């Protein structure tokens, strides 16, 4: 488990994260959502030890990521949003850099490259942005790490690759892994991210499983207007409306509507989920 306690970070005068407290559990694929500039990338880089917490602490199964112990580094991978286009073939990159990760599996790298329809013999600096991204995704999965942090992994992927990514993220990761994916493309990752974390400026607004969310909130897709809707939005064929779940009935969580609801009713949402 990763335990984040009262975590704070500022760039100079500008506070980005303030009082972040949450736990990340094994076997889960967390979706990290938040508006631009709320500190999603900062949080990811803190979790993998690239930055030092200015306040509070991060505990990764008893270790502090900023200590950068080799045993932890070789069991975690951080896929950043921007990836370097190396002057070498993808397969060579994997061969040389894979050595840094204890569980790295070259066969898996080649297999995932195939699944994503990417050529391992192509030079990385001759790849398109999407192809390059896919190379790093294949590399990230082939590292077989327990901790996997991904910043906007579906950015730049073509339509078939997005579907393949959703399948690969469970097929090629360890059962005990803790995966944290930051994204704006919630539709790309719908049905795959659960629990959902919503960050606000300096604060965690929500960290809940889809099951908990559907117990507390009801998502209505009918055309009838609801009086007590916390949020409503017109869509072709009706409305998406979100209200408190009073009947206990189950509904499908729409992540975009959830995000907007949480932003409109921050205190109310924090209240009902922290009970």
């Amino acid at each position, binding site marked *: 488990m990763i335990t984040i306690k009262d975590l704070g970070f500022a760039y100079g005068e500008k506070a980005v994260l303030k009082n972040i407290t949450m736990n990340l559990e094994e*076997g*889960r*694929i967390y979706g990290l959502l938040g508006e631009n500039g709320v500190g999603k990338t900062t949080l990811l880089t803190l979790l993998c030890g690239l930055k030092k917490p200015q306040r509070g602490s991060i505990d990764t199964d008893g270790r502090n990521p900023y200590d950068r112990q080799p045993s932890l580094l070789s069991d975690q991978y951080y896929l950043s949003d921007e990836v370097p286009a190396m002057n070498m073939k993808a397969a060579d990159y994997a061969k040389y850099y894979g050595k840094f990760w204890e569980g790295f599996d070259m066969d898996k790298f080649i297999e995932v490259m195939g699944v994503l329809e990417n050529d391992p013999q192509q030079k990385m600096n001759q790849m398109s942005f999407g192809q390059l991204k896919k190379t790093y995704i294949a590399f990230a999965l082939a590292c077989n790490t327990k901790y996997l942090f991904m910043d906007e992994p579906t950015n730049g992927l073509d339509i078939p690759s997005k*579907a393949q990514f*959703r*399948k*690969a993220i*469970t*097929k090629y990761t360890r*059962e005990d892994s803790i995966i944290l994916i930051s994204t704006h493309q919630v539709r790309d990752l719908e*049905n*795959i*991210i*659960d629990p959902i974390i919503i960050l606000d400026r300096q604060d965690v607004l929500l960290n809940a*499983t*889809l*099951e908990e969310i*559907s117990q507390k909130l009801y*998502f209505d*897709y*009918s055309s009838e207007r609801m009086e007590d809707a916390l949020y409503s939005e017109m869509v072709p064929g009706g409305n998406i409306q979100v209200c408190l779940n009073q009947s206990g009935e*189950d*509904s*499908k*969580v*729409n992540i975009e509507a959830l995000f907007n609801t949480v932003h409109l009713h921050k205190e109310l949402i924090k209240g009902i989920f922290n009970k």
Partner: protein
Amino acid sequence: MEFNSNKSIYLQICDAICEQILSGTLKPDERIPSVREYGSEIGVNPNTIMRSYEKLTADGIIYNRRGIGYFISPDALQTVLEAQRKEFMEEELPQILRRMKLLGIDPSTLVG
């Protein structure tokens, strides 16, 4: 898998499995994919599949053999038939009848 917009995903997965039992694609005592296998096949979070399997187990439609996997119950077909017939009579049929009344369709024209 294509999901429609209003039913929760884990229930839609239950429906898909029941559908395959009704059509005979899944047979009694046949093993179904593990939670992670099924999740990666259809691109859905394993926790969601787990919820579906838990519900189907509670309903007596599948059973779990520890360490081996999930299997279709011997009497799953009967269980699904009974549950869905009941649902059809109590929920779907009244809606159809209401709609027929609105459209002025006489039920007797459908028979024969």
